């Protein structure tokens, strides 16, 4: 059995695939090494929901055979990965991070799991998550049957949610990549807090069949990985139309960075107050430096403003109404009280009372939000903003604590995460530096189906920086 240097556990998936093709080691050796690391270190970060080592090692035999016979199936062939525990896998428990669903078993694989299996990627474990992907809302990082997601950069801090295990596992080099999901911030937040690269795809681009539904009109599944390049390759595999997902856009995605638009032709919109006022003081130097790198890509930088809408009211209404309807049986049966987070329990119960009128008004305003974004994206091609304004909070800090600082007068892009989710827009999260020893990140947001543009810009950014290659003291 090969003994792997630590560097290998932090290598991008495409590099690992190249080394498999070169015969440096076998898929079985690679999968065994990653599985052992995930089993040993996963509990340290509360990031492992279910190890799948035996199944994973069994699957490697055929894939090693394919490599020997030169049946090459793309850059993810032979690569181990982890999946957020809201994606079902045939015959294995899928707990959705929540006590009432512990031991739940499905008899089919989620579409994304099936697609990755077909390309030769090997699932080595289900990764922990905030219960019910956060439900309508939650108060504590500990809102999970597996406990709070601990950040590999500082275990007294949160890894972010709701894809908390996916964030920790990739950051700590326990898997080369993972699948996460986002309803409003659940991919971007753990990526930003853990210092990894993540992509929230356009709504409808990736099938959600086999994934726990939290909000039919907001849920998306996306890759969390080391580089923008890896995210592109993963998205190409998992995207595509699916008759089993009524929200599917019926579109595929082909990762074609070679045909990307020249950087000088890209108009990047930003809000100055994001970097000067909204960002936490300790994070401002990192964001300022990162923004200088963005400018050095020779993109055309111009100030932009987000459309003004009652975004909190819209997303609160839609999310509460849809989540409460989806989990109505859980709520009315009383099993909802088994959840760990009191605020989530209350939010689900209250969500049953949202009126049809309010829900429809929120959806009307949502149409207006999409129309305003269409206008905005006729003036700029991409929006650049801090992914989160500060670093990961301490695990005991209530997430709904009132902010320590007064909100700045100008809104900047502070509502970009909920607004862009309401409009179904894609976003790329790029690590861009450190504040108080913790990672911070930028987000790039583009019009629907502009993933190739975001990834091209992300690749250029990562060519000029090495933040994505930094690793925590595991």
């Amino acid at each position, binding site marked *: 059995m090969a003994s792997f240097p630590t560097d290998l556990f932090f290598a991008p998936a495409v590099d690992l695939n190249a080394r498999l093709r070169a015969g440096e080691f076998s898929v079985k050796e690679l999968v065994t090494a990653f599985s052992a690391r995930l089993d040993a270190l996963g509990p340290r970060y509360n990031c492992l929901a279910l190890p799948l080592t035996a199944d994973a090692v069994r699957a490697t035999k055929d894939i090693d055979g394919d490599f020997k016979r030169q049946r090459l199936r793309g850059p993810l062939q032979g690569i181990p990965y982890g999946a957020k525990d809201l994606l079902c896998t045939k015959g294995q428990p899928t707990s959705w991070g929540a006590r009432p669903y512990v031991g739940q078993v499905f008899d089919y694989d989620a579409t994304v799991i099936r697609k990755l299996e077909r390309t030769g990627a090997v699932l080595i474990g289900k990764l922990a998550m905030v219960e019910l992907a956060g439900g309508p809302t939650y108060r504590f990082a500990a809102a999970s049957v597996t406990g709070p997601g601990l950040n590999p950069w500082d275990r007294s801090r949160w890894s972010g949610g709701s894809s908390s295990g996916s964030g920790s596992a990739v950051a700590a080099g326990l898997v080369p990549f993972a699948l996460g999901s986002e309803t409003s911030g659940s991919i971007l937040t753990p990526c930003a807090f853990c210092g990894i690269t993540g992509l929230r795809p356009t709504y409808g681009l990736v099938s959600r069949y086999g994934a726990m539904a939290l909000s*039919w009109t907001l849920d998306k599944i996306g890759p969390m990985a080391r580089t923008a390049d890896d995210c592109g390759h993963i998205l190409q595999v998992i995207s595509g139309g699916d008759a089993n997902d009524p929200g599917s856009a019926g579109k595929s995605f082909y990762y074609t960075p070679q045909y990307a638009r020249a950087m000088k032709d890209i108009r990047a919109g930003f809000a100055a107050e994001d970097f000067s006022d909204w960002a936490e003081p300790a994070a401002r130097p990192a964001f300022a430096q990162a923004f200088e790198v963005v400018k050095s890509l020779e993109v055309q930088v111009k100030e932009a403003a987000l459309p003004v809408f009652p975004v909190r*009211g819209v997303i609160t209404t839609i999310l509460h109404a849809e989540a409460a309807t989806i989990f109505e049986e859980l709520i009315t049966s009383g099993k909802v009280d088994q959840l760990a987070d009191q605020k989530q329990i*209350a939010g689900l119960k209250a*969500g049953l009372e949202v009126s049809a009128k309010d829900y429809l*008004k929120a959806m009307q305003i949502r149409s207006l939000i999409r129309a305003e974004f269409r206008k905005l994206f006729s003036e700029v091609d991409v929006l650049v903003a801090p992914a989160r304004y500060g670093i990961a909070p301490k*695990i005991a800090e209530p997430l709904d604590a009132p902010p320590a600082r007064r909100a700045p007068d100008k809104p900047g892009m502070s509502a970009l995460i909920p607004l862009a989710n309401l409009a179904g827009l894609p976003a790329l999260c790029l690590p861009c530096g450190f504040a108080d020893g913790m990672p911070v990140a930028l987000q790039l947001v583009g019009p629907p189906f502009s993933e190739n543009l975001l990834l091209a810009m992300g690749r250029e950014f990562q060519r000029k920086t090495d933040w994505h290659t930094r690793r925590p003291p595991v």
Partner: protein
Amino acid sequence: MATFFTMPRRCGKRHDGGQTCTCSFGPPVGRTGAGEAPPAARAILRAMTRKMSRRGLGSVALAGFAAGPGALTQGVAQTSLPTPKDDLEAAQRSLKTASRELNQFSIPRGTEPAFLFRA
């Protein structure tokens, strides 16, 4: 806002806000004046706060002690966590505020809701 539960001496159980711990406080830990915690009780309280903090359940603050004649028999601690009733009321308030925000927003005539949502 307060959740009260008896303060355990060696309780390994998880104490979420809103739950009552039925663990006994254990043997008397010292003498105390009215409303005053003895050093041993303060040490237990500190340990419990550390444990809750590690689990992300917030901190515990001393609310008061019921002292029997001559010996301390029971302590009560107060978490900073809201009760389930507080939370439900807050969630309902939040949805009412959301509803108000939606109703105050002027929606142009003929705007269709984003049915069958497509990006």
